[in-house]
C-alpha cells in the first residue's frame, strides 16, 4: 500500500531525511521509532503530501504522492503531531466538515460521523465546542477525523502523546484493530507501544533507517537477549563460564549471575545446560530465568551519538 523509495528531504543544508526506503502492506502496523528530531514527523508529512520530498518517490496504493496527489490523499487518514483541529467548531461540526472534504454528503456524511463518534467515544461531547474540551477529547476528535472515510492507509504522528494510561490503552487497541485491514504507520517514542501494537518497527536516527524488523527481532539485537540469569546459593562463576554454550558470565548486583550465550539462537540449550550444572552441583536455586532483551537498550545503543556511547 505504502511504498517509499530513496526518500530524501533537506532543509537548507541540513538533511532531515536521508535516503529512506521501506514499504508497508495492508494488515501491517509499522511502528516508527527514533529520538526527537530524527525525521519521523518530516517523513510522515511527506507521505501525507504536506511537504514535497527533495528526492525519491512515495506511492500510496499505486498513486504517486506528488504527481497524483489527490488520489493518494483520498486513501490516507492522517493524525498530525499536535492533533490540530479548529477550536471554534463543535465536535460534530468539525467531523462533518472533514467528511465533506472527503466527499461525503447527506446521509453518508451523517453515517460516517456517527461511526467515528462511536469508535472514538465522543458521544458525550458531540455538541461541545472543541476548545472547551480536555486534551484527551481534543486528541480523539482529531483521531476520529482521520478515520472518517475509513481509509486504507492510516498515518499517525504520536497518537498516544498526552493521553492518560487508559486512553493510551484504548488508542493502542484501536490501532491494532485498524491494522488488521489497513496499512498503518504510527510514530512514537514510547517503546512499550511497539510490543502493544506493532507488527513491525523501524528505528530511524538522523534521517536514516538504523533498524528494521519485528519487535521480536529488534529485541534480539539486545545484548541481554537469550542470557540466563541465575540466583543460587553456592553458585560458582568459573564453573558456569566453563559451559560450552556460555560466552561469559557477569555478576548482577552481587546477588545473581548472568550467563550470556555464544549464540543467541541457542539460548534454550544454554538454559538447559545451566539447569543440568545446577543439578549436578546441588546449588540451591532461588531464581532462574531467560532474559528477553529490552527494546530500550537496543534503541539507546543504536541511536545514541558515538561520543555519548563511549
Amino acid at each position, binding site marked *: 500500500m505504502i511504498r517509499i523509495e530513496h526518500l530524501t*528531504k*533537506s*532543509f*537548507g543544508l541540513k538533511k532531515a531525511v536521508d535516503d529512506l526506503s521501506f514499504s508497508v502492506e495492508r494488515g501491517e502496523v509499522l511502528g516508527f521509532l527514533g529520538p526527537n528530531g530524527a525525521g519521523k514527523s518530516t517523513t510522515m*508529512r511527506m507521505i*501525507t*503530501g*504536506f*511537504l*514535497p520530498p527533495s528526492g525519491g518517490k512515495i506511492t500510496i496504493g499505486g498513486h504517486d504522492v506528488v504527481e497524483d*496527489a*489527490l488520489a493518494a*490523499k*483520498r486513501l*490516507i487518514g*492522517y493524525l*498530525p*503531531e*499536535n492533533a*490540530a*483541529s*479548529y*477550536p*471554534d*467548531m463543535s465536535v460534530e*461540526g468539525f467531523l462533518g*466538515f*472533514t467528511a*465533506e*472534504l*472527503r*466527499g461525503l*454528503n447527506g446521509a453518508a456524511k451523517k453515517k460516517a460521523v456517527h461511526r467515528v463518534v462511536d469508535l472514538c467515544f465522543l458521544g458525550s461531547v458531540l455538541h461541545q*465546542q472543541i476548545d472547551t474540551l480536555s486534551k484527551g477529547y481534543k486528541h480523539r476528535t*482529531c483521531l476520529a*477525523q482521520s478515520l472518517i472515510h475509513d481509509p486504507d492507509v492510516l498515518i499517525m504522528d504520536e497518537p498516544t502523546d498526552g493521553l492518560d494510561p487508559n486512553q493510551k490503552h484504548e488508542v493502542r487497541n484501536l490501532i491494532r484493530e485498524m491494522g488488521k485491514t489497513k496499512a498503518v504507520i504510527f510514530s512514537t517514542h514510547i517503546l512499550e507501544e511497539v510490543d502493544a501494537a506493532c507488527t513491525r518497527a523501524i528505528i530511524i536516527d538522523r534521517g536514516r533507517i538504523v533498524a528494521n524488523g519485528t519487535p521480536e527481532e529488534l529485541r534480539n539485537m539486545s545484548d541481554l537477549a537469550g542470557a540466563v540469569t541465575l540466583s543460587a546459593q553456592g553458585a560458582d562463576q568459573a564453573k558456569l563460564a566453563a559451559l560450552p554454550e556460555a560466552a561469559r558470565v557477569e555478576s548482577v548486583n552481587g546477588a545473581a549471575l548472568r550467563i550470556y550465550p555464544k549464540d543467541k539462537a541457542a539460548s534454550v540449550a544454554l538454559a538447559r545446560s545451566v539447569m543440568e550444572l545446577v543439578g549436578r552441583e546441588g546449588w540451591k536455586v532461588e531464581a532462574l530465568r531467560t532474559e528477553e532483551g529490552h527494546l530500550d537498550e537496543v534503541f539507546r545503543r543504536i541511536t545514541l551519538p558515538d561520543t555519548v556511547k563511549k
Partner: protein
Amino acid sequence: MNHSVATIKAIAKRELSSYFTSPVAYVFLVIFLLLAGFFTFTVGNFFERGEASLSAFFAWHPWIYLVLVPAVGMRVWSEERRSGTMELLLTMPVNAWEAILAKFLASWAFLAIALALTFPIVITVNVLGTPDNGMIFAGYLGSLFLAGAYLAITCMTSAMTRNQVVSFILSVVLCLFLILAGFNPVTDMMTRWANPALVEIVAAFSVVTHFDGFQKGVIDTRDLFFFLSVIGFALFATSVIIRNHRAG
C-alpha cells in the same frame, strides 16, 4: 470540476460560519457601520451637501477599509499556520488553490454582508430626494471590488506569517500604498519633480483612481479588470508563499 466546487463550498462554509461563532464578526459589523455613518454624516456633511447622492458615503470607503479589511483577513492563513490546522487542511484531498480561493470568497462574502447592512442609507437618500440609483449600484459594486482587492492582499500577507499582528501591519502598509499612489495630494506633490507620464503610471496602480469611476456611476471594464487582476495576483502570490513555506 465537481470536486473543486464541493471542496470550495465546504471550506468557504466553515470559514464564513467561523466569523459568526466568534464575537469578531459582530464587533466588526458594529464598528464598520458606526464608522461609515460617522464619516458620511459628520465628516462628509451628508445633509449640508443638499445632493441626492451617496458620494459622501463612498468617498471614505478606501480609508475605512484600510483598517477594517486587514482586521477581517489577517487571521485567514496565519491562524491556520499557528494552530497547525494548515497541515490538516492541506493533507485532505484538497488542492491548495481551492483552499485559497474558498477562504478568500468566504471573507469577501462576509465583507459583502457588512456592506449590505448599510442599506438604510440608500433608503434615506431615496426618501429625501430622487437619487440616481444606477449610480448608487455602481458605487456599491466598486466598493465591493475595492474591499476584495484589500482582502486579497491581506490573504497574501496572512500567508507570510503565523503572527496575525504582523500580517495586519503589512497589509495596511501595502493597501496604504495602493491608496496613496493615486491620492490627489500625493500625485500633486509628485508632479512637481517627476515626469507627468510617470506620475500617471504610478497613479494607475492606485485603487482610488479606479474606484473614482464607480463612484461616478461608470462601470468601466478597465476598472473591473484592475481590481480583478489585483485580486488574481495577490491570490496567486498567496499560493506561491504557501508552496514555498511547505517546500521548507
